[in-house]
């Protein structure tokens, strides 16, 4: 099971402040998974004895399609996605969260200006959308709000992707979140964060197409809609209509 040829390589991606660390802590609880958080280089490939090894990174500030050479420190400041895509048995878990929640959290926690926060979210969505199109079978998209509301369903989707049995202990991942050790459960108040499909004012004019990609990714979080969209390339209006029917 853990022989090199059968080992799965996992990358968890999401914009900063999208719940990537909580998601990693939950997945990392699985017996057969060895998972790192924000480790540079491909360090996880040196883990032994696990069926699945992987890393969690924030996009775009920690990873891009091409590595970013930082002249000031003479080293790469971002990992290259292409290196990950070249790994055998590569699997991807993407997490998306509403732009307003992400932007306000980035501003509050990291003290970054609103424009920087929006840029992170937009670029993150664009990269994740491209990845989902490139790897339709090997990528799972999770909506942060939906994960809080129904964590078991999403953990089952992840274990299905990784060909592992589901384990209930994954639901206790919040206990291992390195940044929020005081949590005694899921903060369900955040599950109700701006979940409406409403686009922020002026967003379409300034950043055309990004909101649509976000909605497509979020729809991909639902199995049926993902199948319909990515295999038949339905228009967004069809997806919304189907969503209402279901």
């Amino acid at each position, binding site marked *: *099971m*853990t*022989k090199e040829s059968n080992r799965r390589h996992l990358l968890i991606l999401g914009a900063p402040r999208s719940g990537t*660390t909580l998601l*990693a*802590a*939950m997945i*990392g*609880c699985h*017996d*057969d998974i*060895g*998972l*790192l*958080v*924000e*480790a540079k280089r491909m*360090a*996880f490939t*040196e*883990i*032994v*004895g*696990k069926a699945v090894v992987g890393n*969690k990174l924030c996009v775009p500030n920690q990873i891009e399609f091409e590595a970013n050479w930082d002249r000031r420190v003479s080293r790469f400041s971002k990992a290259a996605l292409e290196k990950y895509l070249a790994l055998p048995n590569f699997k991807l878990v993407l997490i998306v969260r509403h732009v307003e929640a992400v932007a306000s959290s980035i501003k509050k926690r990291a003290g970054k200006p609103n424009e920087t926060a929006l840029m992170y979210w937009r670029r993150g969505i664009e990269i994740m959308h491209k990845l989902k199109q490139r790897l339709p079978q090997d990528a799972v998209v999770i909506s942060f709000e939906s994960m809080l509301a129904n964590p078991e369903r999403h953990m089952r989707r992840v274990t299905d992707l990784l060909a592992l049995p589901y384990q209930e202990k994954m639901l206790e*991942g919040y*206990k*291992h*979140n*390195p940044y929020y050790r005081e949590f005694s459960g899921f903060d369900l108040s955040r599950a109700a964060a701006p979940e409406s499909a409403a686009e922020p004012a002026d967003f379409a004019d300034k950043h055309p197409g990004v909101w649509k990609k976000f909605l497509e990714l979020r729809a991909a979080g639902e199995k049926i809609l993902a199948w319909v969209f990515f295999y038949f390339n339905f228009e967004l209006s069809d997806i919304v209509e189907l969503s209402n029917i279901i």
Partner: protein
Amino acid sequence: MTKQHLLITGAPRSGTTLLANMLGRHSEIVLFVAAKRMFFNRVVSKTVVGNTLCVPDEIDFRERRQQGISFYSARPLERYLKFQNFRTLLAVQDGSRVVAAIMRDEGETFDAAAQCWCRAVAVMHELKQRLQQNALLVSMAHLRANPEDLMRRVAAFLGLEYQAKMLEGWQEDSADAPTDVAPAAHDLKSLYPEIWKKYLELCVPDERQIKGGN
């Protein structure tokens, strides 16, 4: 949950990688093999995290810069000793077989292989003295004679439940296990009497373990 930091160390060709492969099967352990940096700090949701490094080429008390190359060939052990809840497993293997295996597998001369083994014994002896109860000696002889017993002891040492799947590491990775080699013809005991004395001190607890003593 209090995270424990583990270092598996020993001379090259002493079974350190096999030991890591077995322990890495445990649901609460994530182990690296020969990771140059302390990436195990980045592991989430596990009780025991650690690395596997050989003495002296990958880790030593001193930091050593490799001649002609701009990176360090051995990281200092002192950095590991600063970790909270730090424990170490010291892999002890028959000295003359280790030397013979290094000569065969790495193409080293007897002198170079013997120096490598001597340094490994000296470092492990010092580690055992400094860490006392937080260092556990394990030997390939014990692993071969009774792998389940050894895994049970290691799990207890780490405060974890024994898991039968740890033995899968032995079965699946047996191809990579140090194979039997003829012992080196040289007499390590007479060539390095001080080191030999330390080596025997490291071996004694394992001899007792194999016989079922404490």
